[in-house]
């Protein structure tokens, strides 16, 4: 029943991999990836895919819309940009079956050395099949139930969309870099392929198969929020709501001597997901802070007064609330703005294309669109086109436990938690697996509002719709900030349709981070070195260590002594000897040592061996 384990000396190393290849900020779609050695176990946090790198490939064209009006639209960009524009012409993109870019240095790591993989969000799971199918992979993978499911759907959709390329280019497997002469690529593309320092060529691989995805999911153990799971008898792992997306989480790991908290991108209060659970992260021995979704890259040196004037560490509720000003109402404003812009386009006769991947945002937009359409009095169909849309939408109606308070209240008062179920029944929203679904073609009408993947604008129905609408000045494309828009749109140029770029909350605002870190009262904080200038002044109140990308950071040993639980029957057998001249009593101690659920027990020798 008990598990004997070896306890390695309690040193913690950090091997950190940060990806900064294309996206200016990793952001929502590209969570960072870390490896931590804790209690002798190698723990990998997240395994994402850099899907923004897909933009170097040429999208498949339907041929139908090519050359149409090519000449009609004059180039709108200024002369200054004309040179760049020339370089990013459609002809420069790689016309081949796309390869996918995984975490830069992870493939250099011996996968059999990884003991635990913790997945914080569906986006942090997209690269996982590459890992799980690797020879020698034997780690235990943990993710919340919802992350595992959403991740599964996203990966299945990715594989399904990729099929289109497979059908176009045929089954032959050619190495990407035999096909294209990457030396000849324009510098922008070359940097995507090779990375800034030219070392990333090895991180490209062909996409995994549906079977790989299935196999990968069988290796994932799903968790509830705040469920305690014990790894190898020693490490107690807990997933705690991060608020970023439904089911996404931060982590708390408890070892025999100290505990570690890991904060991934977190949102204080979201319109869909359960609020970030910070209370459970209070007072950790080590806090790894990796939410820099809102890091703008600028080395803005912190103005000392802005946060050091804030009342030092109090943990009552109002302090927590002070961190959360109106984030959700700001978010609502943005969503409403998208809706009203869309309605304007529709009224002018143009269609709206929303190739967004964020489930929480899509669900809220669907609800708002219904309201806006009703109040504007126009009739416009909403189409959702994706191979997994139907299942995804059905799934979101059955997870009230993972949602924010307002949605849970709807459950208690007997209302549906999301409006889309009703809207689909009322035929205001139509869901189809593919663009060429027969029923879709039968009822297709323009203008319409279409939600479909993929935000890279290289995969899925979005490509074909963009080819159809890019020349329509009344049409609207809603993009999420974080993609290199110029590169992403290059194969569809010239573009007459309006492009709306929006950014959504995908992490804690930088200016709130110092205050949050103080309130969490960790004994030590680990931060990436590029934030050093910003956080240097924090050092006075909380000790900070800064880690460097792809370098190992050794942690100081914990001074905590290991707590031993001695069974009372053993304790009562002790013969205590008082030493003269000193106030010290000693006794010889003999027993069996057990480790169970991260606790050490000493029991009398003669007990049964069960």
């Amino acid at each position, binding site marked *: 029943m008990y598990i004997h384990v070896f306890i390695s000396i309690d040193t913690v190393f950090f091997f950190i991999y940060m990806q900064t290849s294309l996206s200016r900020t990793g952001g929502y779609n590209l969570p960072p990836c870390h490896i931590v050695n804790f209690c002798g176990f190698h723990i990998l946090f997240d395994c994402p895919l850099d899907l923004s790198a897909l933009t170097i490939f040429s999208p498949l064209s339907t041929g139908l819309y090519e050359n149409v009006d090519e000449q009609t639209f004059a180039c709108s960009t200024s002369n200054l940009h004309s040179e760049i524009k020339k370089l990013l012409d459609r002809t420069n993109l790689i016309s081949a079956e796309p390869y996918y870019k995984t975490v830069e240095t992870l493939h250099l790591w011996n996968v059999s050395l990884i003991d635990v993989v913790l997945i914080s969000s569906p986006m942090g799971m997209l690269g996982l099949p590459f890992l799980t199918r690797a020879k020698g992979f034997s780690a235990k993978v943990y993710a919340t139930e919802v992350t595992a499911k959403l991740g599964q759907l996203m990966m299945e959709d990715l594989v399904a969309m990729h099929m289109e390329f497979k059908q176009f280019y045929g089954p032959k497997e050619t190495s990407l870099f035999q096909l294209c002469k990457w030396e000849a690529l324009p510098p922008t593309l070359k940097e995507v392929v090779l990375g800034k320092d030219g070392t990333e060529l090895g991180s490209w691989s062909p996409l995994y198969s549906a079977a790989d995805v299935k196999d990968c999911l069988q290796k994932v153990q799903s968790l509830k*929020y705040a469920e305690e799971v014990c790894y190898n008898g020693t490490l107690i792992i807990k997933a705690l709501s991060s608020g970023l997306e439904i089911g996404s989480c931060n982590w708390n790991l408890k070892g025999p001597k100290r505990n570690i908290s890991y904060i991934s991108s977190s949102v204080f209060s979201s319109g869909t997901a359960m609020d970030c659970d910070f209370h*459970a992260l209070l007072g950790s021995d080590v806090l790894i802070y990796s939410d820099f979704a809102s890091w703008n890259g600028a080395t803005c040196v912190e103005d000392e007064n802005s946060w050091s004037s804030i009342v030092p560490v109090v943990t009552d509720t109002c302090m927590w609330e002070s961190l959360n000003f109106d984030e959700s109402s700001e978010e609502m404003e943005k969503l409403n703005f998208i809706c009203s812009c869309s309605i304007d386009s529709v009224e002018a006769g143009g269609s709206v294309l929303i190739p967004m991947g964020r489930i929480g945002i899509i669900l809220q937009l669907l609800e708002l669109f219904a309201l806006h359409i009703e109040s504007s009095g126009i009739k416009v169909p909403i189409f959702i086109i994706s191979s997994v849309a139907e299942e995804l939408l059905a799934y979101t109606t059955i997870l*009230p436990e993972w949602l924010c308070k307002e949605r849970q209240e709807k459950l208690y008062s007997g209302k549906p*938690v999301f409006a889309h179920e009703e809207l689909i029944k009322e035929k205001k929203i139509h869901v189809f697996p593919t663009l060429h679904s027969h029923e879709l073609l039968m009822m297709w009408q323009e203008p319409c509002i279409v939600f479909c993947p993929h935000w890279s604008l290289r995969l899925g129905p979005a490509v074909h719709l963009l080819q159809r609408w890019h020349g329509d000045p009344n049409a609207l494309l809603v993009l999420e900030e974080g993609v290199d828009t110029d590169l992403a749109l290059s194969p569809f140029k010239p573009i007459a349709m309006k492009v709306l770029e929006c950014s959504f909350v995908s992490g804690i605002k930088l200016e709130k981070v110092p205050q949050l870190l103080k309130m969490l009262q960790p004994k030590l904080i680990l931060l990436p070195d590029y934030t050093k200038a910003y956080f240097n002044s924090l050092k006075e109140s909380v000790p900070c260590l800064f880690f460097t990308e792809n370098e190992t950071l050794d942690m100081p040993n914990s001074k905590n*002594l*290991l*707590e031993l639980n001695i069974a009372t029957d053993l304790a009562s057998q002790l013969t205590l000897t008082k030493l003269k001249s000193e106030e010290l009593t000693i*006794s*010889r101690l003999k027993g069996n040592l057990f480790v169970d659920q991260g606790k*050490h027990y000493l029991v009398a020798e003669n007990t049964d061996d069960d």
Partner: protein
Amino acid sequence: MAIECLVLGAGQEVGKSCVVVTINGKRIMFDCGMHMGYVDHRRYPDFSLISKSGDFDNALSCVIITHFHLDHIGALPYFTEVCGYNGPIYMTYPTKALAPLMLDDYRKVMVGRGEEQQFTNENILNCLKKVTAIDIKQTVQVDKDLQIRAYYAGHVLGAAMIYASVGDAAMVYTGDYNMTPDRHLGAAQIDRLHLDLVITESTYGKTIRDSKYAREREFLKAVHTCVANGGKVLIPTFALGRAQELCILLDDYWERMNLKVPIYFSSGLTIQANLYYKVLISWTSQKVKDTYATRNAFNFKNVQSFERSLIHAPGPCVLFATPGMLSGGFSLEVFKHWAPCESNLITLPGYCVAGTVGHKLSDKTTKVDVDKDTQIDVRCKIHRLSFSPHTDEKGIMDLVKFLSPKNVILVHGEIKNMVNLKGRMESELGIQCYYPSNNETVSFPTTHFVKADASAAFIRSTLTPNFKFLKDEAAEMAPVQVLDERVTQGILTMEKGQKVKILHQDELLATVGTEQAEI
């Protein structure tokens, strides 16, 4: 360090479950039920035993409700809104969502019977607002020392077994549970835990049940025969639980047999309940859960809602009517009309509490006193379904054996079952077993570990494998036996005003100085 267990209800009986456990100084109330068989003060637990002054907020650390049945939650609005308890209350998401339906249904029945209303609908809603919803396996830190966790119990949607621990002491209160999966719910599931106490239900503590499929077939056959002969079938159930279980069964059977006889639900309540079941489908069994993407199993095809005028309509039908046990309300009203007709069928699923009409029916008497002035001549067929979502004797023994606690307390059952179970547990499992009656207290000491700080050198020395190789001399070809006996040896030191420390003996020498090296 001790556990003290005060049984306020369901001691040697079924009804008003309520147990107050003091564990290392923390006091938890498990369930807060009401007794369906009484209308006087005996229907509620005697809360004055918790606190004479009525200061329940200081007397209790928290209240935990295991599931939405009235004998487990019925007194909660009374306790919070009338008695004034304001502290934390925990229950699972489905229980929180469905409890108001159950409570309000019961309140209406009370009002309908002309009784004094114990709490208003507003009371119910206010009470539920104070509840913190929890998920299965979620570990909740109630305060610095008290930790609770819910495990899947399978009895009804959202039913949970509760684990609570304070310091080294830990216990499980099972509530009602089912060790075998049924049509829409999975079987109870729990981790192997180190427990000082398990408080378990014992409703069917002396019954081993046969295959569920035989019972299902029997039920379907009885219903089919009745409607084929033009009879009406009345199934008195509570709005939640059995209603959905039997409805999945019937709906499926109707599809397969292509039957057109209408199936009715008596009130909008059950229809409303089905909506909740659809959203909370992840709390059902895996098989039912997997239907969410295609056709949610709680989207019943053949089910309609019932109008009062249909009571006397000609032709066969099946009616699910609330409340269960024929304890009053609409089901009893329909019963009065349908019972005298021989071609009709009354199906009673599950346990009927003593004092209800449902309980009286089981005595095979033809004349039944429904209330003071009415006697009904029962001529219809009575079909009893032992479709109870409770575990049987084997299930209880299996669970207790699996958990192997130091002590067991039996509640929620008849005394003869408890005597039987106590005998088996003490003789077969060697576990101390008690079955206190209501308002009785049982207490026993709890596990306690002496805490000490261990030095790194000590831990390292103990982890070195200590191999021994044994060879059986008699048999020449016998393989070498390898033994790894890790016996820990160290020195325990206690210094005034400091925590107990455990050191490796070399370390001790350094601390006390060489002159005492001989020790």
